């Protein structure tokens, strides 16, 4: 019996080993695909910057998109922000207490939230909510010929749909991040008060003590890039989605996956750049 199993496992292994030549070939093909994809996204971005400065400007549609991406995400971003601040504080209290450093908690939490956790978590949530929404919406407009219809009726669908959405995410995600940071700090204040009695003014004076204005700027700048990339990937995937409802699902899905990955990559680059300059 045991032997039998082992044999089967061996067989399975044999099946799974593809000749090396084929392996390199397929990995080469997927590498090539990634390369082509990157090139296409870059062209898409170039086109965005070209069209952005060309009149007429679709101001009304832009405001609508700001409302949809910004206002409609407030609740979600607020709740997650509050929980983040609260949990981070509760989790770090015992360790800090061991060193008798409870007084440092507000400062430590504030630095980690504002520099890192706030921007990244908010961007990831928006990649999920806003990015997938844009991917699905533009994807279904594409497969039901609405984009073609816009084009023949004299609108520039790239301007009307893509430029307005990317601009909206680029401007709204930073706003959402600030909102999330503020709520997170409040969550942390609540967390501190679960075990201790710290006044609101004392808590926030500790927070501002630990924050340097210079620290805030890179953290704020990178959120614009997060917003830009979320809009860009969502629009790219939707605008180029394949025919059929399956294509729409794929567009939404890969918009989220790729945008989330890009958020981390941008974050990494941002860290490198800020350490280089400080």
């Amino acid at each position, binding site marked *: 019996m045991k032997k039998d199993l082992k044999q089967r496992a061996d067989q399975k292994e044999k099946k799974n080993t593809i000749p090396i030549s084929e392996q390199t070939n397929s990995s080469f093909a997927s590498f090539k695909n990634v390369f082509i994809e990157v090139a296409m996204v870059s062209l898409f971005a170039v086109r965005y910057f070209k069209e952005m400065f060309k009149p007429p400007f679709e101001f009304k549609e832009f405001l609508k998109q700001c409302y949809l991406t910004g206002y409609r995400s407030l609740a979600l971003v607020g709740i997650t922000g509050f929980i983040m601040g609260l949990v981070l504080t509760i989790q770090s209290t015992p360790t800090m207490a061991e060193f008798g450093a409870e007084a440092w908690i507000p400062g430590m939490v504030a630095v980690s939230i504002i520099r890192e956790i706030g921007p990244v978590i908010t961007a990831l949530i928006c990649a999920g909510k806003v990015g997938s929404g844009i991917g699905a919406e533009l994807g279904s*407009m594409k497969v039901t010929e*609405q984009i*073609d219809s816009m084009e*023949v009726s*004299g609108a520039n669908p790239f301007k009307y749909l893509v430029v307005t959405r990317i601009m909206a995410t680029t401007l709204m995600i930073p706003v959402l991040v600030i909102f999330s940071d503020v709520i997170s700090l409040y969550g942390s204040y609540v967390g501190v008060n679960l075990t201790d009695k710290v006044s609101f003014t004392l808590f926030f004076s500790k927070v501002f003590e630990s924050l340097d204005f210079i620290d805030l700027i890179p953290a704020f700048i990178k959120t614009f890039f997060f917003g830009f990339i979320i809009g860009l990937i969502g629009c790219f995937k939707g605008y180029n989605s394949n025919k059929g409802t399956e294509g729409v699902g794929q567009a939404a899905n890969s918009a989220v996956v790729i945008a989330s990955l890009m958020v981390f990559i941008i974050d990494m680059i941002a860290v490198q750049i800020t350490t280089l300059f400080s």
Partner: protein
Amino acid sequence: MENREAENKEVNDNKIIVEMKNVKKSFNQNHVLKDVNFQLNRGENLVVLGKSGTGKSVLIKCIVKLIEIDSGSLMVFNKDTLTLKEKELNEIRAKIGFLFQSGALYDSMTVRENLEFPIRRRSKTVTQDELDSSVKEVLENVGLEDTIDKMPSELSGGMRKRISLARTLILKPELMLYDEPTTGLDPITSQEISELILEVQKKYKTTSIIITHDIKCAKITSNRIMVIDGGGFIAEGTYDELKASDNELVSSFFK
């Protein structure tokens, strides 16, 4: 003498709205249009019959340059579509109404916004009063005045089709391209739409290409019928001429 010839030519040119010569179009290995030749004269209703997947939709998308032809020549309003500048292309598109096979209503807009959209794009100076009266007029034409504040998702399939027809008619285009205007509608509505197409031709002096499988619609609307198969047109004539045809494929449409 020469002057006269030139004049004659101009009159002729003005009579021909669309002209295709040896047009080819392939998608990778899929050769959809192999050799398409036809002329569309001013004021006529040309019906195109053909099996599913023979490239009828591709044919009319080439005319508005949503799809670019691979080779051959395609003249629309006496302009060569291959060498059009963006501005010229927009001028041509402004004269063309395109009814998409799927309707293509904008999901995120109400019926009113859908109908206003093409007008706002074409003219910056239009007043709200003018908009309202145009919208009212086309909605009356298709008999759906009470849907004005609904979203497309709240409408039935036939209603959506009629609203998209209204949206195409609202600019009173010189050339109308109907992609299966009656498919999926009940016989009564189909007949109404067919009569509406005929009425539009008379009232606004439009020229039309009508793609359809619906032989009743072809009978009502057509001045001339062409049958497409295997990448090119295989038969041409009036309704009665083609009905008497002994070609198996052609006669199968008339059963």
